[in-house]
């Protein structure tokens, strides 16, 4: 091989690859609106992305698989956790993970920022990224099933959607705050007290670790009904 041939190999290799790559970049931009639903990329979502950067979430959590591998991937976190659970975790990690082998720092994220972050994660979850990550696909499917019959969701869906980040019920949810079947046996609150408790636990029981829940009073009422309905009738109270 002469020096000239070698030089041609260099030039051809570089420019052919660069040309293919630039064309595909052009096509990437053409298709991004469809694949990422840019019509839903609102100012709130962008604000949420800034929150994501501001607290350096990405150096512990991966998103789209990139970033730190220290904490779960956030691509489909919205489907996995839902509004209320994300809010509780971000605002009170020291409570949620007090017994966990791994901690999340208390970052002092404000309420409006939490809302923006949730909007960002919701939008991110909708990116058409070929069903990655594999372990979260079941949550996406379940979420979409619930969404399809939003009008007649059963109570378990609603309750676990809001409380499943900490409480468990019949093999669903996480075991941080206890199982609803046990809780129902333990508590002595009536409906109204329980609603009050869900919205602001410390106002009913000052020593409790559970953080205030980011749900509407209607949802809180539904959750209260659900929990109370789990009481098995050992005896009728006077």
């Amino acid at each position, binding site marked *: 091989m002469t*020096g000239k041939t070698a030089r041609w190999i260099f030039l051809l290799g570089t420019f052919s690859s660069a040309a293919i790559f630039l064309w595909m970049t052009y096509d990437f931009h053409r298709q991004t609106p469809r694949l990422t639903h840019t019509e839903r990329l609102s100012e709130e979502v962008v604000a949420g*992305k800034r929150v994501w950067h501001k607290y350096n979430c*990405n*150096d*512990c959590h991966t998103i789209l698989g990139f970033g730190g*591998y220290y904490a779960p991937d956030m691509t489909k976190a919205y489907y996995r956790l839902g509004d209320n659970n994300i809010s509780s975790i971000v605002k009170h990690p020291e409570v949620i993970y007090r017994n966990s082998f791994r901690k999340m720092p208390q970052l002092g994220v404000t309420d409006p920022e939490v809302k923006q972050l949730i909007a960002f994660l919701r939008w991110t979850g909708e*990116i058409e*990224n070929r069903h990655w990550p*594999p*372990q979260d696909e079941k949550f996406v499917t379940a979420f979409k099933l619930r969404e399809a019959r939003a009008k007649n969701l059963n109570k378990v869906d609603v309750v676990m959607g809001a409380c499943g980040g900490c409480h468990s019920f019949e093999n669903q949810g996480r075991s941080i705050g206890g199982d609803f079947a046990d809780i129902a046996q333990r508590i002595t609150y009536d409906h109204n007290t329980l609603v009050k408790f869900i919205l602001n636990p410390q106002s009913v029981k000052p020593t409790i670790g559970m953080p205030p829940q980011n749900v509407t009073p209607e949802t809180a009422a539904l959750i209260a009904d659900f929990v109370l309905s789990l009481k098995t009738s050992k005896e009728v109270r006077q």
Partner: protein
Amino acid sequence: MIRYESQRVSLWYIRLALILFVLQVVVGLWLSINYAFTLPQELVNVFPFATAREIHTNLLVAWMLLGFMGGTYFILPLECERDLFSNKIAYVQLVIFAAAAVTAVVGFLFRWTRGKPLLEIPFPMNALIVVAALLFIGNVALTIIKAKVRSPLQWMLLFGVTFLAVMYLFGMPFYRNLNTDYYYWWWVIHLWVEGAWEIVTAAIMAFIIMQVTGVDRKVVEKWLYVETGLFLFTGIVGTGHHYYWIGAPDYWIWWGGIFSALEPLPIVLMVVDTWMHVRERKNAIINPLTWTYIVGLAIYHLVGAGLWGFMHTLPPVNYYTHGSQVTVSHGHLAFFGAYALLNMTIFYFALPRMKNIRRYRDTAGKWGFWIMTVAMFLLGLTFGVAGILQTYLERFLDIGYSTAQLTMMLWFKIAFGVGLVFLCGVLITVWHLFTLQAVEEGTSE
């Protein structure tokens, strides 16, 4: 034994690079402690994993770039047969770069960050880095332009460092869309490590091999063209292996998959040509350790970047291993094998010459080399086991994130132990480089 006085500017680049290398490894050990043990909430609140990770990775980038720049300043006068265009620019650039890097790292401790992995440096510091880069490229370009001799190697080096600097710009803006953000993030990260940095590596290694082995320039330059051509041919479209799961069009699976499967080819060529040049050497082996580094770099480069990268970027594998500790395994072996060893090779080439040592005492250096390379390989395997556990438990068996992470804690305890050994190797090597001593001629051999 330096031929041009301005080669000396690289000394401080090298010294600073070595110090940052030690710091990077120390912070790395802290990261493994985060994984291996449960830390108290109060500590996590003030010094979270995220902060330590950004320090670890930015120190990496900083010492790599310092090594490349120092190396370039050392070999450029030899290649151009004249002094650098300006020593002053070289020093000013070093001060700006170092100040920006140190300020950025200290800023991280106070949550001053852009929160974009590996590119966390906030805008004002980024602007300083750009100024330093412009000064560097200007200095290199003017040195080449004013030289009386012309060689492909000069241009390749200039092309490499310019390519490197230009790509950095794509990481600087704020992107509204997350997928576009990561699309261009890889223009920096991927087109650096599998593009620009490879070009710089190929050019510097071509020069060092030529000098050390005495092999004919024509032969070395031919290899250089073919290798860099193949690096860029496979590497540019190979960027697609990062676009499988970000919401990019489907054809990236094929283009990214096929081109990145070809990416080991130029590295194989590099091993072959290094091996051939070493065998057909015209010079006697004066410092065996320098030769060890040259061959070690070629082989480790192939294993860490080539082999590990190849396995991990095949789309059906990557579906499970993407964003797991498998990436960590690949990242450590590839960065160490390709670029840390490149820098060490540069340092072992440059420092003895700067200290006017023809033949250096290399006992400590040899220990350093073998401890570092073996420990890093074991570390790569440990991360690999953790990664396979993680992907198998969490993604294949689908038994949850926490279960997988708990199972991996043992492997991070092992990683911490191996990391300590690695740190010893690094300290020995750095100490050896700082205190190089001549062998008194005639006493041995």
